[in-house]
Each structure stands twice: as C-alpha cells, then as structure tokens.
C-alpha cells in the first residue's frame, strides 16, 4: 500500500498546462492509494499518445506499448500473472480508432482488468486531427469543413461488447473520478471507464465550462446500474451528459475457467524440467 506521495514517480508530466490528464493522474493515484495493492503488484499499461505517457508519472510497474495496443499486452500480463492488478489506459484515438478491435474483444472476454479511456475527442500528440469520438460536424485540422462521420460512443460499444462494469468520469471532478476508478479496479471482471477530458490546446471549442454545464451524475438521477437496457439508454443521451456507473454485473471471469492457475499463476510454475513422455506417446 502506498500513499499518493509515494506514488509520485519524481518525473514532471509533460502535458500542456490545464490538460485533463493532470486530473486523471491525480484520480488514478488517489484510487491506487485507497486500494490495498502494493506498488510492485500494480502494472499500468498504456498505448501511445499524450495520456499514454502516464505510466512514467506513477511509481508502479509500467508498460508503455504502441499506439492502440494497450489491451493485448495488458491481457498477456494478466494471464501470465493474474495476481497482479492490471490497469490499461489510453486516449480515444488509441482505444476507439487504431485499437478498436482489441477494445471489443477484450470486453467480451471479461478479463479481470480495468481499462480507462482518456477521451478528449481529438488527436492531441499528432497536433489536432479528428478522432473517432469527435462529434459529427466538428472542425479540426484534418476536417476543416467539419467531420462527416458519425462519432463513436465508447460506453455504448463497451456495453454491446459485454463489459461487466461500464462507467464515465469527468476530469473536472477529481473526487468523483477517483471513486469511479477505485470501483473499476475493484470490480471482479473487465471494467471500462470513459473519461471526459478537456483538451485545452486543440479543443478550445470544448472547454471545462461546457462539460460542467452538460454533465450530471447517474447516482443522483436514480439510475439502476443493474439494468442493462436503462444503461444503454443513458449512454445514448446527447442533451445532457451522464457521468457515473452505467452498468455493473457479476459474471464468471476469463481465468475462472482456467483450472491450472488456481493455485499458482503461470509465472510461478516450475519449468526447469518438463516431462514430455506422455505427450510424445502419440508419435510412437
């Protein structure tokens, strides 16, 4: 168990002043310090992008993979050693553009990992192009006449793909976000958290104040998190933007069906002298 101070890596984040990633970092550290997980048993896996630099700023084990690929290595780490807490994190381009295939398949596997999308509706590190979550009609550097495509709705996709915990947070409410991340990491099964995250450099049209005027908390609106249909409806709201837990259910997780890692994770199993005698019988 570590305090927030102990979770500081000692490196100063390189994000733009005012970036939503600072709040997400604070919330992640806050959640980890509340959960009773030793630093060495935590692995934060990211993709590539502004937000994906986050493993460098938290003192745990980290894996900064390639653009769009946080989920496959997170899956590999988890299956190799399911005693670790694995948190995957990356931007909307990372998760819903180049990494969309992995998102859908990771959700349906119900692996016991947490996936956080830093959703600022823009490609930041590549200097301001449209992203899959950029709303239709938005002008960006790659869509100067307004984007033509319908945007992706990440929580709706996570629900459709079979995620057993689906939530949305807002970088403008750190306390609420911290609680969501804590719940997500604690959830037994795959958890998906989309985070509204203002990009102060490339999305000046989408400032904190606009989010603040639109968001409302699901838990204050009497939403039933066990009701899948209600969750679907909430994710589809466009006039007001719900934050909080959309849906939560308990189902057997992927590793429940792998009997041979019940006692020991793969990495702890003895491989020094495997006996192949039984295997090769079929070739005699």
């Amino acid at each position, binding site marked *: 168990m570590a305090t927030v101070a102990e979770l500081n890596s000692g490196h100063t984040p390189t994000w733009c002043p005012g970036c939503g990633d600072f709040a997400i970092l604070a919330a992640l550290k806050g959640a980890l310090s509340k959960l009773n997980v030793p630093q060495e048993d935590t692995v934060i896996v990211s993709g590539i992008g502004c937000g994906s630099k986050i493993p460098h700023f938290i003192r745990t084990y980290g894996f*900064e993979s390639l653009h769009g690929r946080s989920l496959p290595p997170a899956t590999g780490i988890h299956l190799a050693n399911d005693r670790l807490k694995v948190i995957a994190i990356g931007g909307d381009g990372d998760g819903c553009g180049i990494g969309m295939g992995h998102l859908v398949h990771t959700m349906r596997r119900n692996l016991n990992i947490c996936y956080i999308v830093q959703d600022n509706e823009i490609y930041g590190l590549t200097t301001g192009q449209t992203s899959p979550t950029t709303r239709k009609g938005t002008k960006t550097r790659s869509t100067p006449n307004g984007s033509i495509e319908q945007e992706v709705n990440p929580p709706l996709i996570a629900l459709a793909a079979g995620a057993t915990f689906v939530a949305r947070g807002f970088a403008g409410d750190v306390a609420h976000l911290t609680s969501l991340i804590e719940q997500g990491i604690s959830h037994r099964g795959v958890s998906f958290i989309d985070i509204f995250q203002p990009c102060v450099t490339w999305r000046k049209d989408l400032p904190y104040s606009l989010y603040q005027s639109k968001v409302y908390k699901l838990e204050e609106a009497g939403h039933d998190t066990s009701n899948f249909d209600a969750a679907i409806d909430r994710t589809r709201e466009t006039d007001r933007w719900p934050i909080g837990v959309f849906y939560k259910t308990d189902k057997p997780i992927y590793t429940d069906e792998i009997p041979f890692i019940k006692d020991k994770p793969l990495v702890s199993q003895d491989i020094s002298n495997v006996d192949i005698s039984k295997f*090769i019988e079929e070739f005699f």
Partner: protein
Amino acid sequence: MADTNRLNFLIGGPAGAGVATMGILFAKCMQRAGLNVFGTNDYPSLIKGGHNTYAISASDEQINSLMGKPDMLLALDQLTIRLHSKCLSPGGALIYDSNKVKEGDIAEGRKDIFHVGAPFTEMAAKAGGEIMFNTVALGAAVGVLGMDFTIAEGLLRRIWEKKGEEVVQQNIAAARAGFDYSRSELKTPFKVKIEPVKRDKTMFINGNEAVVVGAVKAGCKFVAEYPMSPSSSILHLMAGHEREYGIIVKQTEDELSAAHMIAGASFAGARSMTATSGGGFSLMTEALGMMGMMELPCVIINSQRCGPSTGLPTYTEQADLLFSLHASQGEFPRVVVAPGDVEECYTETINAFNLAELVQAPAIILLDKYLSESSKTTEDFRKLQTGVERGRLMSDSDMEKAEGFKRYAFNSDGISPRCLPGQKNGLHVCSSYEHDETGFSSEEAGMRVAMINKRAKKLAAISEELIAPTFHGAMQSQAEILLVCWGSTKGAAIDSLRFLAKAGIAARVMHLRYAEPFPSKRVLSALTSAKSTLIIEGNSNAQMREHILKKTGYYIEKAYLRYDGRPFIAKDIAEHVKTTLKK
C-alpha cells in the same frame, strides 16, 4: 526382382476423404516395421473436393525426403488415376476402390502394373460402416507388400482402443478384408517386399508437432495465435495439451494482438510464443520492433508459404528470409533460426526460448509449409540433451536485496539484469520509446547512441558453436562441389548425395540454421576451401546467397532455385548438380 524394404507410395483423393490421415496411418505401419519413413502432403486451399495427395518413402536406409516415383498408388478417386498412374514405377501396383473408379478408365498403356481394384466401400459396409473404406484400403496396401497383418492390427488397436472394443474389432475386420483381397488378387509376389527390422522405437512426427513438443519442453507457458495456414496445427496441438501442461493458449482477434499479448506475458515473466505465416508475420512487425526496444524475450514462428500477399496458401516457399532479418523499422538485434528437419524443429525451438532470454530479444523460427507438414521418423526426443536457461532473470530473493535497480543498466555485454512485475525494488516502465537505464523515456542524443550500442552488443553472447552450420557427405578435400542450403532443404540436399555418389560424384552439403547471428567465419572458410559451390534455396532471388555475401563477402555464383510452391526433390538436386559440373 524383389526390392526389400525400399518403398515409395502415393495416396490420392479429394479433400475430405482422409488422404493425409490414411497416409499417416500407412506410414506408421512402416514405422512399426522398423523402417525410416518420410511422408509429405500436397493439397489446395479448400476443404472438400479438389485433389489431395500424401506421398511416403520408406527405407531401411536413413532417408530424409521423397526418394523416387511411386511403386504403389492408392487412388480414392478417378482423378488420382488420371494424374498419377503414368508416374508409377515399372511393375508398380495400382490399388483403387472399384466402387468409385471404373476399370476402363485406368492407366492406358500400362500393361506392366498390377491392378488391385477392390470394392472398398462395400467391404467397409460389411465390416461395420462405409466410413471405414480407408481402413480397407490400408489393409489392401499392406497385403500387396507381403507384410504380416499383425503390425497393422496392432496399430489399429492402438488408435481405436479409446473408442471401445467394438470399434477396434470393426476396424481390424475392415483392414483384414482389404488385406485378404489383395493377397488373393496378386498371383505373383509384388516387386517390393517389407520385412520388419528390429530397432529402438522411433517417433513419426512433423515439423509443427516437433516445434510444439519443443516449446512444451522449453517451458512455454503462454501461446497467443491467430489461425493461418500452415501454422494453425501448432495452435491446435498446443490447445489440445493446454491443461495437461498448464499452458494458456489464446486464439486472438488478429496477429497484432497475438504478438502484443506475448510481449505482455513475456514482460510478466512467462515464456511466450506465437505462430503464423508470412501474412500474419507482416502484421506482427510493429510488435517485433517493440520487443526489440523493450528487450523482451519472445518466440515468433513464421511457417513460410508462397507470397506475396495471400499467394499460394498451402504451398511451400523460403522467401521470408530477408524479410525476417529486417522486419520492423529501426535497428535492433533479433535471432533468426531456420531448422532443417523435425529433430532441429524440436531442439531449435528450445534453443530459441533460451536464446531469447539470454539476449533479451525476439527470436524468429523460420519454418515453411513443407517442413511444418512433412513427417519423418526420428529418434526419441528424450534422448536429446536440452535444458532451460533463463539468462539474467532476477529471482525474488535477488530483488529483495536489490538497491537502485536499473532495468536497462549498461554493462560490458549489453545484457542487463531483468526483473518482473510483482518483484520488490524493481519498479520501472517498460517503454516502446527510447529510454534511459531506468526505463524513463529519453530523447537525449548521447543516451540514444548509448542505448543503440548497448542493444547491438547483445548477440555476441550467443556461442559460435551453437549457431555453426552442419556438414554432410564427402570430406572437404574430396568433394567436387559444396551444396549450400538452409532450413527445410536439408533433407533433400542430404539425400541427393546418395544419387550423386551412384554417379561417381563426391559432394558435400553445408546446411545453415542460423541467419542471425550468422556463423560468418565458418561459412567463409567452407566456401573458400570448396572446389565449387552451389546455393540451393526455395525463392527466386537467392536470398541466402545475398545474406552470405553481406556477411562474408563471398558470392556463390551458381544457384538452383525453386519457387513453384513445391519442395526440392533429392533426385532433381542430383541431376542439377550433374549438369552444373559438366559445364
């Protein structure tokens, strides 16, 4: 004149008729007779119909490939007769299902061959079910060879005993019916006779199977794979042994995921591998570079097929050599090894796992369709010396004492101690960005150069002995020509020596397994001391010749290249060598 214990046999039929299953069954009869057996299949990319064959050579001499034209042809359909009966060796036997093939269509002008046309389907139905027409055919083939029935009977019992005594008896009855039929049909003894030889038990195994056994022996714990011919049987066989050996086998959404999953599992400390063919390997190149940057040990199997693009999915080629050596942007070390036979598939898979951990880098195993799916008798793998060496992997107790641990610490050989998540005192980020000794991303010029140099040094830790080429045939001083080959061409190249010797030509084979690291000194010395040299490889650009030139400065002028999707044949190599030497 009877030829004892030298047989070439071809089975043909439509896909879905069990051609390969029968071929393997028959080959196992020869294996149980104590012979050396080689078997290989040929099939188009479809599931039902088309034309499949399984070819077998069996001999009491050491053989490593197909040795000649079929002496016996088993036709499960008309097409097989049309395509192959003219290739039957003089005095050969044609065995066919008279329920499916009409007498009149058979092999015009071949009065010299035996006809064994039995109503397989009818006989199978009598024995218990039409589905056993294969077993009747097997019995008929064994009968032609004058073999005792007990070997076939023992094999069938072994295969079917799990299904219960009734199934065993039905199959034995079906085989017996075929056996008795051909015995009564053959008025004079067939030209080939099989007389069982006493010897230690051998394994009959193909390249993919040998790789899987090797991976299990090496302690592979995690396999992620997306299906692709001809690598898919690795996925199937691994998955079949998942619980027995405690290996998680994950079929992924694509090859990107497969390669990245094994990177993650390797970071967490599990020995991990994936298998694919060239198309899938293309998708894995981004992960390959990431493994290079992160210094992660992973094993990637690329069973080559004809490219580019979809190419000829079920046909063989050796055209991914340079691609494997250079795949992914930037510069980083990797191991590239191409086993030459099933025994090397086993040992080099174990080596690949050990070397990947020794140098903390990806290891690519290059197979091809021919090696993956050709089976061969080989000695019991348990007799081969192998071990698990995990390189500079830190134990939990090492890490308890570690202070100021740096995952990418600079040292003389470039190989840093490696810790795993879950261990104390080792917190770091494993990053795809260039990084400093702690793993923190760095774009500083000096650090960049130091890290490139650090990684580049690592392959030197691999012993020259391990990667040395192997030599076969005549002594260097005697040989008129040095045949240079790599990967799966080994068997046919070695077998060509026998045909060359008959023609009075002393030749020597140099077989290369390792393309990276490369045994430059030994290869150069062999090439410069040879009277003449010939490169033999399965691609149109002579890629290994180019690689040898780059590594040694020696250019092998003469090349025998094959890129029609079909494997090299020993007799063809011998003929080519004869022509080359005449010029």
